[in-house]
């Protein structure tokens, strides 16, 4: 995207009917490190790549527990993500206080989306620069939603966001039909495989990723390093074998197909939120 005379305010339309500030906010999501989510009928798995600023610093926290039945993974401006996570936690706990039951995921994401929309229509605000992958369970089953800075939200079987997320999307597009009936373990393994795709050949270890699970009879929680490393070892040691007996590339070689661009829309003329 190039600078133009309509991109200064969020409240200025371009002649083509675009709000450039909102699109720039969506760019911020693409620059963040990768986060993915997938769901089956009974579980939702969220996973993210954790890059630290330097060897001396700790990793950026990208996955947050919102309630026992809901968790969120973020990509983009993590400070905005933190603030929105706090809002989500607040909404969940207030609902529980009034109704003594869990806030349905579908309602939470609508509230989030409406909050994001407000920032696209006030001259004194800016859009949130963070994409949220909300995973949770309620009485109508397991859900995975993606909320973007534009105020739109969609439900997904599987989704990836952040830098080099296209590689993960490609992997998941091939395998998503198996996810609904997938077991919990296979779902987590698929998440790790998809995450590995975004690393472009770098070795996947539990120190650079975070994995979280929520399911029927299983509260949202982040898996500890040992568990994750054990799962990674399981499928790396398996070598060519992927969980669904699909040939997987050697991890040193990486995935050559992952070069597909995931930076910005391929079609410059179409506003991303129109898709």
């Amino acid at each position: 995207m190039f600078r133009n005379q309509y991109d200064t305010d969020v409240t200025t339309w371009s002649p083509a009917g675009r709000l450039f500030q909102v699109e720039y906010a969506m760019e911020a999501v693409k620059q963040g490190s990768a986060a993915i989510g997938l769901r089956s009928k009974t579980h939702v798995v969220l996973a993210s790549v954790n890059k630290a600023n330097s060897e001396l610093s700790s990793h950026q926290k990208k996955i947050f527990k919102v309630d026992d039945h809901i968790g969120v993974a973020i990509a983009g401006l993590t400070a905005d993500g933190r603030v929105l996570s706090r809002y989500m936690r607040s909404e969940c706990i207030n609902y529980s206080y009034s109704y003594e039951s869990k806030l349905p995921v579908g309602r939470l994401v609508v509230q989030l989306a409406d909050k994001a929309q407000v920032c696209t229509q006030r001259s004194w605000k800016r859009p949130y620069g963070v994409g949220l992958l909300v995973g949770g369970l309620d009485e109508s089953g397991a859900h995975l939603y993606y909320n973007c800075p534009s105020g739109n939200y969609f439900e997904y079987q599987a989704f990836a966001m952040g830098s080099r997320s296209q590689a993960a999307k490609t992997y998941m597009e091939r395998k998503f039909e198996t996810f609904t009936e997938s077991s919990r373990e296979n779902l987590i393994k698929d998440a790790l495989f998809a995450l590995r795709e975004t690393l472009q050949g770098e070795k996947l270890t539990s120190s650079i990723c975070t994995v979280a699970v929520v399911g029927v009879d299983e509260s949202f929680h982040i898996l500890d390093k040992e568990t994750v490393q054990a799962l990674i070892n399981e499928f790396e040691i398996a070598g060519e074998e992927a969980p669904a007996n699909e040939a997987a590339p050697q991890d040193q070689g990486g995935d050559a197909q992952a070069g597909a661009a995931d930076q910005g829309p391929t079609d410059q003329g179409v506003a991303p939120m129109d898709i």
Partner: protein
Amino acid sequence: MLDSEVPATSKNSSVISEADSQRTLYPYVTGTSVVGIKYKDGILMAADMGGSYGSTLRYKGVERMKPVGKHSLIGASGELSDFQEILRYLDELMLYDNLWDNGNSLGPKEVHNYLTRVMYNRRNQFNPLWNSLVLGGVKNGQKYLGTVNMIGVHYEDNHVATGFGNHLARPILRDEWHENLSFEDGVKLLEKCMRVLLYRDRSAVNKLQATNITEEGVTISQPYALKTSWNLAAFKNPTVGAEGSW
């Protein structure tokens, strides 16, 4: 809420201070007991149709039980105008629940909890909704029966009652209620309770409704009367054991 610019003249002033007109001090038109029980397919609830004005049995066609949304039923005793206010709150609650237009809906547990928060909040403001409520319902096969009153006391049980029902009906239910009552047995049990209330509660009237809520929905019966028998020896000579009494 309690302080006002107009000072009360004295502690025992017969003039109601301006502040007091802003909050409920006593009830005016009241309904008496409501009794509810769980049975095999759902919840059964009974209440008479009386609205008393102090000691006068003024209104005899008052419906004190109403459905709430798809899954719940509310029965009220106490101030009837406050019950109507509560119905308005619940109507608004259900409206917003439906506006979300997604697969989820508020069940009896959620409605009961919401009402508890409302009642307790009003109690804290010294401006109570002068009611005792029975909230029952079925959702996804789960039966729910609870009660909440004007001070915010709330609990769930297999059988609940308000007012005099607590003293006269609950003991009968404690002895005779059991799991998986059939519909007919449940109605018979409720009628036994309502008959005792009719004999002994001076604000009871002999015109009652029984309502039933199951997974399928709510049915409110047409008003009917219970058969009473005043031929009992105890009623014939009520003062036989207490000379000088009347």
